C-alpha cells in the first residue's frame, strides 16, 4: 500500500530515507549509551549555546513601549474599546455608564434568547436558549454571567471583523500570507499565559484586557476559515461576477464573501467557542464575571458552586454553538409574494410585544427583574455530596494507582528523560523527522528543539515533554477504544460527541481540585488532569474518522464476507487513520495547553516558570517559555501533517 506514496519529484527518497533515519537512530543511541564519556557540552546545552532571548525580547518590548511610545497607542485603543464595553456593561448588568438604561431585566433577555433560538431553528433551540438564561437567573449567577457576556458580545464581533479583514488580506496577497501563516501557527500553539503578560503591560487590567486577550485568542480560527472559504469559492461564480462587470469591491462584497458563507460561519462558531474557553483564563488579568467568580469559589474549595458555574459556561457555549451552527446552515426563507409587512415581520412583532410585557411585569414583580443570591436555588449541596461520594469511592483505587504510577512509572520515566544527553534527544528527533518526512522534516525538528535548547530551559522542557508524552499515551489508550465504541451507531456517536463538547468547554480549573483530592499534589494528578483533556480530541476524531469512511468501501468489505472485526481492522481503521492522527495532533496541542494550566497543581516544568513570569510581569521570559511550548506543538504538528498527507495521498483520499 505504501508504494503509491513515493513521490515522483524525489525519486531517491524511498531507499535513502530509511537508511539515513536508521543511521541517525543509531547515532542517538550511541550518544545516550556513551553519556558518561561525553563532554559536558553534549550532555546539556553549553553556555555559549544558550542565548539570552528573554533579555532581547524585553529590550525590544521596552523600546516599542517607551521609545516608540506604542503604549500610548495601545492604551488609547483600549480606552476606545472600554467605552464600547461600558455600553454593553450598562445594558446587561447596569454598570453606571452611558447610556444608563440597564440593567435589562433577566426575563426580557431570556425571552429574547428564546425568540432568537426560535427564529433560527424552531422550538427546541428556543427552549434551550430560554432555559439557559432561566437557569442562570435561578442559580443567582445573573450578574456574573452578564459581566461575562458583556465582554463576549463585544469581543466576538470584533474578532469576526478582524478575522474577515486579515483573512481577506491573507487570501489576497501571497506575501501577506507568508507572514500571516507562521504567526497564526505560533498564536494557536502559544500558551495563553504567554500573551497575557504583554497585554497587562500594553493594555492594563480589567474587562478591556479580558476582551483583548479573548480577541487575540479567538481571531486565528476566523482568519483561517476566511482564507479557506474565499479559496473555495467556485471560480465560475467569480467569473460570473466578472462578466457582470463587478468591480473588485463589488466582487468581494456581493460574490465572494456571501458565497463563502458556510466557512465564514464555521469561523464565527469557532470564535464563540474560543471566547467561552477564555472566560476563566482572562479573569487572571481582570476580566470580571463567571471566570473570576469561579476562581474565587475554587480558592475557597467550594466545588459544588464552582460546578454550577461550570455548567453555566457549558450551557452558554452549547447554546451559542447551536445557534451559530443552525444559522450557518439556515438559508433565507422564501415568502410568497404579497405577504403583508406584519406577516413578514411576524417574529419581530411578537418579540417586541413580549419584551414590553415582560419589562412591564418585571416592574411589578421584582423577581422577574433580578433574582438575588438569597432567593436563588443552589445545587451546591448535592453536587458536593456527589463529589465526596465519588472521591470516597475511588480513593482506595487511586491510592494504589498513585503509588504504582509514581514509583514504577513516572519517577523512572522522568529521571530517564532528564538523564538523557540533550544531543541524543536532538539526534533522535532528527531521526524521527527523517523517517517521516525526509531531510526537510529532520531540519524542522532540529530547528524547533534546537531553539528550545538555546532558550536555556532544557530540563524543564524535558519535564513538559515527559508529562505530555505520557498523558497522550494514556489518552490514546482510553480515547481510541472509546472512539471505536462510540462510532458503532449514530446515536451513540452523537451522545459521545456531546460528552466531548461538554468536557471541552467545562472550565478545566474545576477538574484540578478533584484530581488533587484523588491523587495529591504530584505528577499523577498533573497527568490525570491532562489526560482528561487530551482524550477529548482523540475520541472525537476517531469517531469522525471511522464514521467518515465511505459507505461503498464498507459494503465492498461486507460483500467479501469480512466479519465486523475484520472490517474494522482492515478497512475502517486504515482509512480513518489520517483523520485519527489529526486527533492525536490536537491531543498534543490540548495537552500542551493543559500542562501549563496544571502548573496550578504543582509541577516543575515550563508551566511553573510561566506562572512565575506572569506574577512578575516578565514579558521576555513569558514569551520565551511560551515559544518553547509552542515549538513542541509545532514540531508534532509538522510531523503529523506530513505523515497524514503522505498517507492520504497513498490512500487516494485527496
Amino acid at each position, binding site marked *: 500500500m505504501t508504494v503509491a506514496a513515493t513521490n515522483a519529484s524525489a525519486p531517491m527518497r524511498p531507499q535513502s530515507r530509511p537508511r539515513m533515519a536508521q543511521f541517525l537512530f543509531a547515532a542517538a543511541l550511541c550518544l545516550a549509551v556513551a553519556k558518561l564519556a561525553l563532554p559536558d557540552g553534549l550532555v546539556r546545552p553549553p553556555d555559549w549555546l544558550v542565548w539570552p532571548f528573554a533579555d532581547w525580547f524585553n529590550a525590544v518590548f521596552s523600546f516599542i513601549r517607551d521609545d516608540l511610545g506604542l503604549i500610548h497607542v495601545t492604551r488609547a485603543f483600549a480606552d476606545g474599546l472600554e467605552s464600547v464595553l461600558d455600553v454593553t456593561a450598562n445594558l446587561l448588568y447596569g454598570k453606571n455608564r452611558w447610556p444608563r438604561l440597564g440593567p435589562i431585566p433577566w426575563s426580557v433577555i431570556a425571552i429574547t434568547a428564546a425568540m432568537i433560538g426560535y427564529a433560527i431553528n424552531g422550538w427546541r433551540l428556543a427552549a434551550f436558549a430560554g432555559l439557559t438564561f432561566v437557569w442562570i437567573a435561578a442559580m443567582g449567577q445573573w450578574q456574573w454571567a452578564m459581566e461575562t457576556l458583556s465582554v463576549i458580545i463585544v469581543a466576538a464581533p470584533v474578532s469576526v471583523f478582524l478575522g474577515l479583514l486579515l483573512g481577506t488580506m491573507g487570501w489576497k496577497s501571497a506575501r501577506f500570507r507568508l507572514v500571516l501563516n507562521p504567526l497564526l501557527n505560533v498564536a494557536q500553539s502559544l500558551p495563553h499565559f504567554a500573551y497575557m503578560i504583554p497585554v497587562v503591560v500594553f493594555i492594563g487590567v480589567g474587562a478591556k484586557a479580558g476582551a483583548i486577550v479573548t480577541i487575540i485568542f479567538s481571531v486565528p480560527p476566523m482568519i483561517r476559515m476566511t482564507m479557506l472559504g474565499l479559496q473555495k469559492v467556485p471560480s465560475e461564480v467569480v*467569473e460570473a461576477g466578472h462578466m457582470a462587470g463587478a468591480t473588485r469591491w463589488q466582487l468581494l462584497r456581493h460574490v465572494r464573501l456571501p458565497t463563502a458563507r458556510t466557512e465564514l460561519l464555521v469561523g464565527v462558531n469557532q470564535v464563540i467557542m474560543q471566547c467561552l474557553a477564555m472566560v476563566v483564563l482572562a479573569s487572571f488579568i481582570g476580566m470580571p464575571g463567571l471566570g473570576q467568580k469561579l476562581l474565587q469559589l475554587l480558592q475557597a474549595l467550594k466545588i459544588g458552586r464552582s460546578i454550577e458555574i461550570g455548567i453555566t459556561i457549558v450551557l452558554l457555549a452549547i447554546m451559542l454553538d447551536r445557534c451559530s451552527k443552525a444559522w450557518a446552515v439556515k438559508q*433565507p426563507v*422564501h415568502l410568497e409574494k404579497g405577504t403583508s409587512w406584519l406577516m413578514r415581520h411576524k417574529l419581530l412583532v411578537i418579540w417586541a410585544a413580549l419584551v414590553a410585557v415582560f419589562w412591564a411585569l418585571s416592574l411589578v414583580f421584582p423577581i422577574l427583574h433580578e433574582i438575588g443570591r438569597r432567593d436563588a436555588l443552589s445545587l451546591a449541596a448535592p453536587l458536593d455530596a456527589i463529589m465526596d461520594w465519588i472521591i470516597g469511592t475511588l480513593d482506595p483505587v487511586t491510592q494504589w494507582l498513585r503509588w504504582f504510577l509514581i514509583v514504577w512509572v513516572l519517577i523512572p520515566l522522568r529521571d530517564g528523560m532528564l538523564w538523557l544527553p540533550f544531543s541524543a534527544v536532538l539526534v533522535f528527533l532528527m531521526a524521527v523527522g527523517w523517517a517521516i518526512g525526509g531531510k526537510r522534516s529532520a531540519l524542522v525538528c532540529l530547528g524547533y528543539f534546537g531553539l528550545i535548547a538555546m532558550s536555556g530551559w532544557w530540563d524543564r522542557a524535558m519535564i513538559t515533554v515527559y508529562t505530555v508524552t505520557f498523558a497522550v499515551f494514556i489518552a490514546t489508550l482510553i480515547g481510541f477504544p472509546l472512539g471505536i465504541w462510540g462510532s458503532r451507531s449514530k446515536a451513540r456517536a452523537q451522545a459521545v460527541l456531546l460528552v466531548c463538547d461538554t468536557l471541552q468547554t467545562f472550565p478545566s480549573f474545576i477538574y484540578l481540585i478533584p484530581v488533587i483530592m484523588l491523587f495529591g499534589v504530584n505528577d499523577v494528578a498533573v497527568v490525570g488532569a491532562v489526560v482528561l483533556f487530551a482524550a477529548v480530541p482523540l475520541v472525537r476524531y476517531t469517531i469522525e474518522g471511522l464514521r467518515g469512511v465511505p459507505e461503498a468501501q464498507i459494503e465492498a468489505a461486507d460483500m467479501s464476507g469480512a466479519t465486523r472485526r475484520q472490517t474494522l481492522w482492515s478497512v475502517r481503521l486504515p482509512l480513518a487513520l489520517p483523520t485519527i492522527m489529526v486527533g492525536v495532533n490536537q491531543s498534543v496541542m490540548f495537552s500542551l495547553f493543559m500542562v501549563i494550566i496544571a502548573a496550578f497543581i504543582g509541577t516543575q516544568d515550563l508551566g511553573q516558570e510561566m506562572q512565575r513570569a506572569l506574577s512578575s510581569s516578565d514579558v521576555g521570559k513569558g514569551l520565551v517559555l511560551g515559544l518553547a511550548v509552542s515549538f513542541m506543538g509545532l514540531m508534532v504538528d509538522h510531523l503529523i501533517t506530513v505523515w497524514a498527507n503522505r498517507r492520504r495521498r497513498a490512500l487516494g483520499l485527496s
Partner: protein
Amino acid sequence: MSPSQPVISCRNVWKLFGPRPESYLAGLDPAAGFDAIRADGYVPAVRDVSLDIARGEMLVIMGLSGSGKSTLVRCMSRLIEITGGEIDVDGRVIGALSERELIDLRRNKMGMVFQNFGLLPHRTVLDNVAFPLEMRGQDIHARRARALEVIELVGLAGREDYFPRELSGGQQQRVGIARSLAIEPDIWFLDEPFSALDPLIRREMQDEFLRLQAMLGKTIVFITHDFDEALRLADRIAIMKDGAVEQCDRPDRIVMNPATDYVAKFIEDVEKARVVHARALAQPVDGQTLTGAPVDGSKTISQLARLLVNDDRAILPVSGPDGRVIGAMDRQQALDVLLGAAQ
C-alpha cells in the same frame, strides 16, 4: 468601424498553464507538438489559434472534453489572460484595456453563460438575474422589471423567489441564460448552455435562440458537444483538438471536406445528408445544358431525398436564394451522400 470588420479577432492566441508560461512560450520551438509541451510540465490549453468572428455570426466550437473550448472562450472575454498572441474585440486589443474599460465593456457589451452555471448561491433567481444590472448601478425598480422580463423569456416565471439550490439543473441553467441576457449583450458567449436541458426544452430554447439571433443579430460564440445542435445553430463550426483549431468552416464544408484525419474521425458518425445542402454539391455550369426545374440550393440532401430517388436526370440544376440557377449537381454524387457511400 466598418461592418465587414470582425467583432472578435484572434491572432495566434496561446494559453499555457504552468509555472512560468510567458518565458516558456518565448523560447518554445514553433514546431513543438502538444505532447512535447505536456512533457515540459505545461498544459497547452489553447495553441496558436487564429479566428475571426463577424458581426452577427454564430460560431460554434466543438471538440472533445479538455480540448480547450472553455479556455478559448475565457480568453476572448479576458476572464483569463492569454500567454501569447492578440485578441481584438470591436477593434480594440482586449488585453490592453484598463480595468475600468474592461468593466465597462462587460457591463454593456458582453454576456456569458457558464458551463456549471456559476450562480450565486445566496441570491434568489430574481436577484441572480438582476445581478449584472445591479453592478451597473441601475435602480431597483428598473432592474426588477428587466429581470422579470428575461425570466419570463426563459420560462421561469413564478420561480423568481427560489434559490438556486431549490431548482433543477436545467432550471439553474436557464437562470444563467437569463442572467447573461439581462444586459442585452452584443457579444454573447455560451459554454454548453443547453447541456442540462431535457430534449423538449432544449429544442424550444434553440428555436428561441434562433429567433433572438434573427431579431437582434448578436455575435455569438457557442460551445456544444451536440452535433445536431451545432448544425441547427451554427454559421461556422470550429473543431478543436488539444488546444488547436483543426478546422473552422461552414458545417457542410467540414462534412464534405474534413481538413484532417481527426476532423474526419470526429464527423464520422454524422448523417451527412442532413448536413449537406444542395448548393454545396453544385458544380459550376460549364456549358452543359440543364433541363427541368432546379432544386432549392438551401435544402439539405435528406430533405431532397424523395426527389433524388425519383428523378431520372443525371445532372440537376441548383437554384440560389433568388431562384436563379447557380450550378449543377451530380445526382449520383447526391445519392452517394444520401446513402452513405461517398468517400
